[in-house]
């Protein structure tokens, strides 16, 4: 059985955010909704400070609390261990958001992409209105609409339901890598099958000590982080007492 997983290599990640943008394009997500995002932290005490950048997405947990708690099974486990969501069954109770310890589920508080429903021209007598622009380009709600997303899920999810990363299941089914993996200029996201002993993911997990977010909660996340980016060095020392 296939079990999809991802390794994120901190040493290679430059924090450019290409994964975040490519995900938004691929999945037609509205403003404020990020299936792929980041945690940025500064640590230490000035002047000895450092900065951490951790790319995030749904961990497709094996023991997913979002799936366990969903009253209608709208949130469910699908082929390859992917945590999928069915907007048709979702009653918008938001309990999955409450349950997810990783903060990766978002709610459609309003009609998606409201800015593209506007009928007033941007500059009167000069430009089209956003809605006309969508019509001319032939997109659905947004001009840069990606119809491929519709293969396994609503292309744009309606108001009143949640949404989150699907590991680009529509692409995997066609033998393509998730959009964020494809877009990463540093190849910091490595995708593969955890159940295949010779997959690159398994090779990397064998080679490097990996960690997962919130591992102590027992949700069995399938996003693994390896290495850390630190090009610096320091003078060899045993420290001091005073």
């Amino acid at each position, binding site marked *: 059985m296939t079990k999809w997983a991802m390794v994120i290599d901190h040493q290679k990640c430059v924090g450019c955010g290409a994964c975040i943008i490519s995900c938004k394009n691929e999945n037609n997500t509205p403003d404020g909704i990020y299936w792929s995002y980041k945690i940025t932290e500064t640590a230490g005490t000035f002047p000895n400070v450092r900065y951490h950048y951790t790319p995030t997405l749904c961990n497709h947990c094996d023991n997913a609390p979002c799936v366990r708690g969903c009253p209608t099974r709208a949130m469910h486990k699908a082929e390859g261990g992917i945590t999928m969501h069915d907007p048709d069954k979702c009653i918008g109770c938001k309990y999955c*958001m409450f349950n997810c310890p990783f903060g990766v589920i978002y709610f459609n508080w309003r009609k998606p992409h409201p800015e593209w429903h506007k009928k007033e021209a941007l500059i009167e007598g000069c430009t089209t209105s956003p809605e006309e622009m969508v019509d001319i380009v032939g997109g659905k709600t947004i001009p840069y609409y990606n119809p491929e997303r519709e293969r396994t899920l609503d292309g744009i999810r309606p108001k009143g339901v949640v949404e989150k990363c699907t590991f680009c299941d529509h692409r995997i089914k066609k033998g393509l890598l998730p959009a964020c993996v494809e877009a990463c200029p540093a190849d910091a996201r490595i995708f593969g099958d955890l159940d295949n002993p010779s997959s690159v993911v398994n090779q990397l997990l064998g080679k490097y000590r990996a960690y997962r977010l919130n591992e102590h909660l027992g949700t069995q996340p399938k996003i693994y982080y390896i290495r850390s980016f630190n090009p610096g060095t320091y003078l060899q020392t045993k420290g001091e007492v005073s």
Partner: protein
Amino acid sequence: MNSAKKLFVPWMAVLLAGVGIGLFTAIVLLMKGHYLFNANDVLIWTLPLGGYVFFALTSTGLALVASLPSVFGLTQFEVLAKRLVFLAISTLVAAFICIGLELGSLTHMIYIMLSPNLSSPIWYMGALYSLELLFLVIKLWQMHMGDWHSIASRWLGSASMLCGVFAALMLGSVFGLTEARPTYFGPFIAIFSLIIAMLSGIAAIILYMNVCRWVSGACSKQADAAVNSLTRMFGFMLGLSLIFYVLKLALASAYTRPEFATAINFNLVLFLLIPYAMMLSKRLRQMAWAKTVAPAITLVGIFAVHMQILIGGQIRPVGPKAEGLPQVLSYFPSIWEILVIVAAVSTMLLLYTLGERWLKLDAAPE
């Protein structure tokens, strides 16, 4: 009686206006979306959900007290039973209004039946409260028809009591099973919910009887003995709830993160402590004003405790949702959230008023 009659029309007008506002709110929310609430992807559940928890648990408490005569043979409460069942129904309707207006998609509700998830506490909670409503309505009908002691009526009493107990436990589990939130404390919160349910139910009926007597002179005097016993039980439940609330605060500060035990948490103890102190005094227990003020303070306090638990567990953004947000969020309800509560309270009071007028709620077995 006369003043009650004079007040009836304006009172009904106010309540009907409240229900009208509720309908308008429902339409606006369903058309525009829940961005009208002061909620966001971090603070997900707000005032309407707090209202739901409060009304649902109060209804459970009322139903539990109503079942004391038929299930445990405490016949002194029979004079209150019909009124209690009716109040439980009306309060549960208010809870359903709150949760209904909180949900994003009512049209998909059918999947609760078609695609149930038997590992979800929300599913059990919904199923149990729906069943409870059904049982309570049948029970009220039986009482109305004068059937108090038949086997079917006893069976219904037990079934609705069990439904109530498990519904309250499940409501608590909705919070208790979220490992993601450090302040919801697993099984503890389920038991806490059940205790608070009982306390709210008792407080609600004592307050109701006193207000009813004061406003209209109605609500039978025969019920006085029952209300007095309930007042003693009220003191006991206040004490028990206080212990559990302090225990919750201790858990919050000792076992999770000390900063969760804020000053607000401790201030809320007063809402239970003041009525508890009042109910300790035998003299005050017999005074109408004290029997009105103490349960009123308790109910306000319980509502505040529910809100504190609800919001307290959500104010810290989780994972990437912390990007661009402060470490701790602040919250104040939007006008639309307040209107949801107005709708629920108006409907509940409208039902109370109509029931009190037409349903002979003082009825008791011969």
